[in-house]
């Protein structure tokens, strides 16, 4: 009698595949994965609580460091929310520059993901090529704001930097180059046989499953989910410069590659459009130091999907509560679904297929049993943290 044995393969938190810590346990039968357990929280730093001890301006810089890859959208979401609370709106030129940098960031994030996902698939040549080309957009971001990552281009009430003619020409040149390269990548990802072998029909999510698991962003759009905050609820200057929705129907990894690369073309088009029609105005509007009491919800479309900020002010110079809902955590549920029944060798591709970003999603979840609802103070949390990991 043949005995089937169940193994558990632990991966992480330190592992060569992903650069961030996350712990996975795959139970396997032979080569087929039968169960997944994910342990997150290695980079939980307590940012939401930290913001309550910092002023509004300091919090802006703190939220920018929720995630280094999509730092600009975090700051944009926070700044837009605070501006709404203050009944101030940033001048049109500032909004256009925010949108422009947001799209440049999307290009950088998608190219980064293209490289990392190709690396997980064992296609290191594409990794090196896409990261080489990504340096072009990094140069542009550095030229605009002086830093390659964490641009801190946002202020409460506007932006810090203007775009002059020389910078405009440089951006257009860079975008031309990147567009040409992106055509090449689209061709590779949709025609290369070895690549298709790793992506076509792997990790498929149907439209129903995607809705059920609440998938957001390009991962959801690859399953035919027609949602994009830039279109559904335009913020900054997406109302003046509309984007077209990019979707695919297949829902497998190849569709996700397809959607993300085609989103690049949309970003290139938008950047050219904004640069040609950059409105003339001031760069900042005045925002009071004490934000009027109230609460606001601010939504933006991060490269990974919908980013949601809930901001509550009690009229002081510090936020009373900020809640961040990042796209990565929404998409993790889909991994537990698609992984079951897949081969173990496909797991790195499936994991990277949702473009996971651990620094975004490691948040404290307090499950309340019964109705013992309570508000945790700073000291309570500190003591709880120290006790928990003692």
């Amino acid at each position, binding site marked *: 009698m043949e005995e089937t044995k169940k193994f558990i393969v632990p991966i992480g*938190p*330190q*592992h*060569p595949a992903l*650069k*961030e*810590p996350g712990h996975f346990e795959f139970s396997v039968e032979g080569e087929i994965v039968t169960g997944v357990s994910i342990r997150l*929280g*290695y*980079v*939980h*730093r*307590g*940012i939401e*609580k*930290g913001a309550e*001890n910092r002023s509004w301006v300091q919090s802006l*810089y*703190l939220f920018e*460091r*929720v*995630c*280094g*890859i999509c*730092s600009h959208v975090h700051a944009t979401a926070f700044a837009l929310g605070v501006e709404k609370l203050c009944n101030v709106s940033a001048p049109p030129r500032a909004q256009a520059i925010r949108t422009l940098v947001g799209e440049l960031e999307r290009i950088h994030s998608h190219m*980064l993901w293209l*490289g*990392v996902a190709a690396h997980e698939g064992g296609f290191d040549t594409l*990794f*090196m090529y896409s*990261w*080489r080309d990504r*340096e072009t957009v*990094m140069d542009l971001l550095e030229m605009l704001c002086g*830093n*390659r*990552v*964490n641009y801190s281009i946002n202020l409460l009430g506007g932006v810090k930097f203007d775009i002059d003619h020389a910078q405009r020409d440089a951006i257009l040149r860079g975008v031309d180059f990147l567009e040409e390269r992106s055509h090449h990548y689209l061709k590779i990802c949709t025609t290369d046989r070895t690549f298709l072998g790793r992506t076509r029909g792997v990790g498929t999510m149907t439209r129903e499953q995607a809705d059920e698991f609440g998938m957001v962003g390009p991962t959801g759009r690859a399953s035919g989910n027609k949602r994009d905050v830039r279109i559904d609820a335009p913020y900054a200057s997406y109302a003046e410069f509309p984007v077209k929705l990019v979707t695919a129907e297949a829902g497998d990894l190849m569709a996700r590659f397809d959607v993300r690369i085609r989103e690049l073309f949309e970003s290139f088009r938008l950047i050219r459009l904004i640069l040609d029609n950059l409105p003339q105005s001031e760069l900042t509007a005045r925002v009071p130091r004490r934000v009027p009491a109230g609460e606001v919800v601010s939504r933006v479309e991060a490269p990974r999907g919908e980013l949601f900020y809930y901001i509550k002010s009690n009229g002081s110079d510090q936020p009373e509560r900020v809640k961040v809902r990042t796209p990565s955590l929404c998409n993790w549920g889909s991994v537990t679904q698609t992984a079951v029944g897949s081969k173990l060798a496909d797991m790195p591709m499936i994991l990277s297929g949702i473009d996971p*970003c*651990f*620094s975004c999603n490691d948040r*404290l979840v307090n499950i309340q049993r019964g109705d013992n609802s309570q508000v945790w103070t*700073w000291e309570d*949390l*500190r003591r709880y*943290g*120290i006790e*928990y*990991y003692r």
Partner: protein
Amino acid sequence: METSLPTPWQQALDKLRDWARINSPWAIHYNSGSCNGCDIEILATLTPRYDIERFGIKLQGSPRHADVLICTGPVTRQSRDRLLRIYEQMPDPKFVVAVGSCGISGGAFRGCYNIVGDISAVIPVNVYIPGCPPRPEAIIYGVVQLLETLKKPVA
């Protein structure tokens, strides 16, 4: 550990080991709670524009094969044990490079409730690379500085 007078054979072997270590240090990367910014810059140092492999430096997965631990971010309470475990698994002699402002002082996250502190609060650090995040050039410079100190004979 048994100690004996250095024989010529032993001296030659030590020299060879030092030579090999300086010319091709293997590095392991661990994110102990950073925002990702430093990690993507470390990854960028591997790619064609910066190409850290021309110094013989190779990023690889296992702590047991590593000479240098490149560590980013403040240390969170959850990753503290893991950081210590990785450090203890590395064979001697081992060196630690702390990348980014958070690794030096806690940076923007200083004082957050789930932060133990900077990296030197947990493990000894040899080289600090400042910046939020440091440029890839700065990371390469920092690692090369570390290699320079290895060239000097130990006093």
